[in-house]
């Protein structure tokens, strides 16, 4: 016999938690037995809180009961035939009442159990028999019409301390030695689900005389995985295909799982060839995700999952005996930090793309050149006007504001000069640029103290140095490439 059955409460006194609710059901049962009809009961609560236990305890008081749950087909007709008759006709044996238990009423399937909710509604309305219904999700749409007709009782999760106490009692009765923290851990991880707690205990304690914290680890792999980091830990720590496949059944986007596994590979694996081999599997998994996306053939996902799970897991020679802190990918804070900038880039790229007959992607590839062009006041003004860019959009290309007043006059000058000879245009350009310099200084002097001028000067000097360095390295790269090319020839 399973321990959940063996140690299930034999009477209402033994039921843990939900004291008020217990009394209510007891009173309700007594009312019926005394011949008073009473509203049917709808028990709502998470799994393992004792809904079914309560219903069965109540059933003991009645002479007969009938039970339907999610595994039964509950179409309109079936419900009508089995329950409808029962509820209309009194039991053949004595005057006993028939209790009707309907489990998982929120799980009635819309299509397969066609009309199920309607049938229940009818029976609840006309029924002369006591009915107890159970459901998990208080917000389920299927309960909307039922709730007003029932006495709805909400079951709370069982308190950890109550679970600990029960687990200890079971251990004593089964003759299993235990450490306090192991039992407490079992209780905690059950998250108020008594059934899970007892099941877990049975898995590690049955047929043994002692349980330790090592046994807990065995449990984690068997457990349903709720957390992405449990998945990643299993992938990095285990080499057991079964455990890893189970761990990969986490409810997340594949690209997200891939990201978190990838992030933690170099944090757990130390040998270079392991990191390399694991990353090769990640790369292949990404290929399949790409193919799935491009072709909309999502059956490719299964290869991606196997590669990023088992593939990464088998890349290590041996499991590391260490504890490494798993972390979220550094990519997410980077993404959120740069979101504003990227949104602005998108907006500007779209605007410019319409004039340039190009997609956002192609326009963005031209941004670096735009940045250089925008350093020139005159060009900056022209381009900003042409693309109709607002001040905040211009900031994408240059930090300083464009001096509108002065540069507004210049284009007309410039246009005239371009029609004249080359030399002339060059001379005027020199003049205008000198003017700009003078005006710059004047305006900055007017606007602020000399300190500001200094701070403005500094970055300029720096950048010119930087560019010199870059220039040098660039030159050598170009030269070297050219010579490589020649060499090949």
């Amino acid at each position, binding site marked *: 016999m399973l321990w959940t059955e063996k140690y299930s409460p034999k009477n209402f006194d033994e039921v843990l938690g939900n004291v008020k609710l217990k009394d209510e059901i007891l009173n309700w049962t007594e009312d019926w037995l005394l011949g008073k009809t009473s509203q049917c009961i709808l028990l709502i609560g998470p799994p393992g809180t004792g809904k079914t236990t309560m219903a069965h305890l109540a059933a003991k008081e009645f002479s007969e009961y009938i039970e339907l749950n999610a595994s039964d087909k509950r179409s309109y007709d079936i419900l009508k035939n089995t329950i409808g008759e029962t509820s209309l006709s009194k039991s053949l044996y004595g005057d006993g009442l028939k209790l009707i238990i309907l489990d998982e009423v929120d799980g009635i399937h819309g299509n397969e159990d066609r009309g199920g909710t309607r049938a229940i509604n009818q029976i609840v309305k006309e029924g002369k028999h006591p009915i107890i219904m159970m459901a998990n999700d208080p917000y389920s749409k299927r309960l909307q019409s039922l709730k007003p007709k029932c006495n709805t009782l909400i079951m709370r999760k069982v308190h950890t301390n109550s679970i600990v106490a029960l687990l200890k009692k079971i251990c004593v009765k089964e003759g299993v030695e235990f450490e306090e923290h192991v039992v407490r851990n079992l209780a905690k991880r059950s998250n108020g689900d008594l059934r899970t707690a007892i099941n877990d205990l049975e898995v590690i304690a049955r047929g043994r005389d002692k349980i330790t914290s090592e046994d807990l680890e065995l449990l984690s792999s068997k457990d349903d995985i709720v957390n992405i980091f449990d998945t990643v830990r299993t992938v990095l720590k285990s080499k057991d295909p079964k455990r890893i496949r189970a761990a990969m059944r986490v409810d997340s986007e594949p690209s997200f799982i891939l990201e978190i596994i990838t992030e933690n590979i170099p944090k757990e694996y130390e040998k270079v060839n392991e990191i390399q081999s694991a*990353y090769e599997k990640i790369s292949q998994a990404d290929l399949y995700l790409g193919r799935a996306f491009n072709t909309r053939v999502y059956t490719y996902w299964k290869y991606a999952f196997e590669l990023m799970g088992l593939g990464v897991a088998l890349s290590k020679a041996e499991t590391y005996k260490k504890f490494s802190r798993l972390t979220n990918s550094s990519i997410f804070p*980077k993404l959120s930090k740069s979101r504003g900038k990227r949104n602005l880039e998108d907006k500007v790229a779209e605007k410019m793309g319409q004039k340039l007959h190009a997609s956002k992607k192609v326009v963005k590839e031209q941004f670096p050149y735009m940045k250089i062009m925008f350093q020139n006041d005159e060009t900056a003004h022209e381009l900003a006007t042409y693309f109709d860019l607002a001040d905040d959009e211009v900031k994408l290309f240059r930090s300083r504001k464009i001096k509108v007043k002065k540069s507004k006059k210049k284009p007309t000058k410039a246009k005239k000069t371009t029609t004249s000879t080359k030399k002339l245009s060059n001379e005027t350009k020199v003049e205008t640029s000198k003017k700009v310099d003078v005006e710059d200084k004047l305006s900055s002097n007017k606007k602020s103290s000399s300190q500001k001028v200094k701070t403005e000067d500094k970055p300029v000097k720096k950048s010119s140095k930087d560019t010199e360095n870059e220039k040098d390295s660039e030159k*050598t790269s170009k030269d070297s490439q050219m010579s490589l090319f020649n060499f090949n020839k």
Partner: protein
Amino acid sequence: MNAPWVEKYRPQTLDEVVGQEHTILRLKRYVKEGNMPNLMFTGPAGVGKTTTAIALAKEMLGEYWRQNFLELNASDARGIDTVRNDIKSFCRLKAVGSPFRIIFLDEVDNMTKDAQHALRREMEMYTKTSSFILSCNYSSKIIDPIQSRCAIFRFVPVKGHQIIKRLEYIAEAEGLKIDMAAIESIVYFAEGDMRRAVNILQASSSAGEEITEESVDEVVSKAKPKDVKKIVNKALDGDFIGARELLRDVMVVQGTSGEDMVTQIYQEVSKMALDGSLNEDIYINLVESIGETDYRIREGSNPRIQLEALLTKFLINSKAD
């Protein structure tokens, strides 16, 4: 109000288009006949696909070309529904003032296969009133039924002497002072991409009065993604996590594309092989890895993941050294 030079000096007629002589010749024949099939332009960036499409539309549709020409960007339009609605409402009306209507759909290879199948239906539905011009970088990414409904034109990188000619033309029109070495330098960096060539020219001209080889170099190095050298060196020194963080910064914060990154990494590595700081055997292994990464970036879903995987190859080589 002046347009950027890429727009200001965009060829307006088929005759003006630089390079692609065979294509232009055949397209002019369509103009002469006053009729054209559905067309597909395929080729790398900046070789004149869009320019040719617009020029062709102008010559084909005549005076009222604007009313009868629809330009759509497949990669920017949100989903196939937008594309279909735009195409539908445009094609439903009969061409006025022109023999038919032309829909130019850019970057079709960025459409999903589903969307492409939907597009194929649209193409069939409106054959009587409209012609399609599709453009893409890789025709292999276009479903067969669409390819078989189009006359395919392959655009090739613009040849060096043709770029030189065009740059000289622009330089004269703008009254620039530029020497041959500078122009040749631009041509070298442009790699057959006319748009890049013109952008480098304008950026160089905005930086100083005179355009020299040095100023061109400066512009190009400024326009490059930063820190690639640092990333490569960190990985070679065995600091994988450090290299990875830097790569993520460059790609996410600076917004560098995967294609650009892989090209830069290649250039960096080949430079190191030449100045002797990288062993030849290691170098050739890395080239193989970089090439494979380049390919996987196009096939995969996340370029950054592929580049991170590439960085692990640098680790192994540093150990073997």
